[in-house]
């Protein structure tokens, strides 16, 4: 049921996308990317955006209360699996040197995220992108800033294995799980197999992540009919969001994202100019992602979607993130370029420029949907107040007690094997 709902929202968005993407691309003087539906620049045409004083109900999925997350048929939920996934999420043994767990970087205290501009990395490294919250990732159909993986099941291994994240290796992580009797028992209960396997670990993690959702924000309550859930100011902000400020063009539907890719003008991260460790990871990311020699030598910013399809018109485009739970997930944008929502609003108000007038390194691909908004101070405050309605109570979770290792064989068994040599 819930998955049907999710699907219908997506179908709606992609239909709109398919209908409009060609003209948008034409307006930009850019070739549309191969899969026009979903993958490329979509949204109402600039012409439409111009006449956009009122809410665009006709074309855009409206903001909606969040339903239940979709559950993939090949990884059904069960209590045993979710509880196991929770332990694994907090267990640093799912990483190279057994010091960093998913929860180390996605810290519940920090919005299930990491509150620095660029995320902390594996020990001895720093990451190259801002950390993303785990809350509501259950609803995305593409994960990471550049939308590079399609499911939580597929995301977990890249998190646990990536050189600047978990830096773990499958064989070894699997072996660790097998030497923890409590895990042997729990994997068996959850999956009915004799030994823990690393693939089942990813499934359990995904199942746990699907429980980390927030569906009772003030906005959800309001949209479900409780008109007192938003203040008057927030209601004004909502109108701006859906109207003059045009946020709804991209941040729409129940998740407040159409999951399409845009270059909205976010400037290069300052960190790369002043931090040697960050410069190392920057080059590594390009090297590891198989950049051409020329790109590797010359690139000085995050090319985003371009990594995936090598279409030059996709340089600097990123997946639209959800606005849910952003009350706890500062800083914002792919390298944490902005520390406050005020700064974000000012950035949009200037048409995609920061305080110093900096904008994207790839101006050719910047979306025409982002233009000066001319918001008054009061309107900015209203919009800010409304953005707060996307966030409910802080979701906290204490680190569970992790089960310990135990030798697999007894001394007597080993002595018997020795004697039989």
């Amino acid at each position, binding site marked *: 049921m819930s998955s049907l709902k999710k699907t219908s929202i997506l179908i709606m968005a992609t239909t709109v996308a398919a209908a409009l993407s060609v003209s948008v691309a034409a307006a930009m003087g850019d070739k549309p990317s191969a899969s026009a539906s979903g993958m490329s620049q979509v949204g109402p045409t600039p012409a439409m955006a111009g006449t956009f004083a009122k809410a665009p109900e006709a074309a855009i999925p409206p903001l909606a209360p969040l339903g239940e997350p979709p559950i993939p048929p090949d990884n059904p939920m069960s209590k045993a699996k979710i509880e196991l996934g929770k332990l694994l999420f907090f267990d640093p*043994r799912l*990483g*190279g*040197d*057994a*010091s960093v767990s998913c929860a180390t970087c996605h810290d519940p205290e920090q919005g299930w995220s990491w509150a620095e501009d660029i995320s902390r990395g*594996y*020990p*001895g*490294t720093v990451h190259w992108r801002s950390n993303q919250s785990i809350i509501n990732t259950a609803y995305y159909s593409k994960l990471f800033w550049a939308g590079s993986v399609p499911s939580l099941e597929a995301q977990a291994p890249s998190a646990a294995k990536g*050189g*600047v994240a978990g*830096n*773990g*290796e*499958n*064989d*070894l992580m*699997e*072996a*660790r799980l*097998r*030497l923890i009797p409590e895990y042997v028992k729990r994997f068996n209960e959850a999956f009915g197999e004799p*030994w823990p396997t690393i693939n089942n670990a990813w499934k359990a993690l995904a199942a746990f992540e699907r429980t980390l959702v927030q569906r009772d924000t003030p906005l959800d309550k309001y949209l479900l009919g409780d008109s007192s859930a938003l203040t008057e100011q927030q209601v004004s902000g909502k109108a701006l969001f859906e109207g003059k400020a045009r946020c709804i063009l991209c941040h729409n539907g129940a998740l407040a994202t159409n999951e399409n890719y845009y270059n909205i003008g976010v400037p290069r991260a300052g960190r*790369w*100019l*002043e*931090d*040697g*460790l960050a*410069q*190392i*990871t*920057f*080059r*590594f990311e*390009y*090297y*590891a992602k198989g950049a051409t020699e020329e790109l*590797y*030598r*010359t*690139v*000085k910013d995050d090319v985003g979607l371009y990594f995936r399809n090598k279409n030059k018109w996709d340089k600097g485009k990123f997946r639209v993130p959800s606005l849910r739970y952003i009350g706890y997930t500062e800083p914002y944008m792919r390298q944490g370029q902005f520390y406050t929502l005020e700064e974000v609003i000012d950035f949009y108000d200037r048409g995609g420029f920061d305080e110093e007038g900096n904008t994207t390194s790839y101006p050719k691909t910047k979306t025409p949907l982002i233009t000066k908004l001319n918001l008054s101070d009061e309107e900015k405050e209203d919009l800010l107040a409304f953005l707060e309605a996307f966030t409910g109570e802080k979701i906290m979770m204490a680190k569970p007690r992790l089960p310990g*290792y*135990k*030798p*697999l*064989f007894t*001394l007597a*068994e*080993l002595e018997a*094997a*020795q*004697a039989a*040599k």
Partner: protein
Amino acid sequence: MAGIMTTRPFMNKRGFLVTALGMGLILANPVAIAGDDIGPLATLKVNKARAELGKRLFFDKRLSGDAAISCGTCHKPEYGFANPDALSEGYPGNKHFRNAPSVINAAHKTVWMHDGRIGTNLNDVTRGMITESYIMNMDMRIMQERLKQDSLYVKMFKDAGLGEPSNGGARKAIPEYLKTLNSEGAPFDDGQMSASAKHGLELFKGKAGCIACHNGPMFTDGQPYNTGVKENFDVFLDPARHQAFIGYADFMGIVNYMNLKRDPGAHIQKHKADGSDIGKFITPSLRELKYTAPYMHNGMIKTLPEVVAFYNRGGDNDRNKDIRMKPLDLSKQEQKDLVAFLLALSGKPLTSSRHVWTEAYPKEYEVIANWLDVPN
């Protein structure tokens, strides 16, 4: 070398070249029985600039994933570039399941690791050490970028004719450095042996029969044998070691790796169906033993007198033990003489700055100040 590798070399996920040694290699290293081929080591030609670079890399912790350990952490100069622990430490979060061997004279070998799984060159050994998840767990692409961030490396790679820092260059420089680690001033090489040691040499070649396997200038024939060394149960009783062992055995294609209660050794090369190759280990060199206790692939024998006593009783129990392993009937004095001879194969410690990088490494990575203006 490549021409005589008859069997299937393959790469693991992290580019670890694994070679199953075939008959070809055995033929290439004819077993010397006569014993008159023992003698000083050949002198190796060394590219100084590369070796110097390799020395800096060998002791640099930034070559491991979390920048916590270097080659020198396990291969310690003061212990003959081996390790005083029976079983080696491992990458943080893991421990190893074998003894860390000396790397002195490693450049004179043609087969490496206790199970002989690498038969190509030290470039491949170096890659294996750096990338193996329970050894240094380093993504070499990150390593390369770390090296490029260090201006002294940029200069040293250039001076060594290796261009800009790269993982390929690092894997050339470290083996070049290993070529500088040779026995120096061993009484055997210098003709300075005591009377007891000289008598020991006679026993070694004669009554004790050691020369059958320990021959050539390195005192090894590079072949695997089962001598019946007891298992080190810590491999299985310490989960931090057992996990690494399981990962290894799984990767090496041992089918019942979860149930394995002994080190398969060179069995991983040919996987003989009857298991008769289980428990064979490559004959180690006998040079520098003075510094490298404890002994054997798993450090189960603590001292040289105990090693000799082990051989004197014909080794320990194993149904597939080599036929040459039989009681020797050596007297107390003969055993002492044999030990004296073994010690005469050890040279001076290689612990000065000639062999050890003694300068401090930078605590932080430099910033490339004009980052926007220079090519990456």
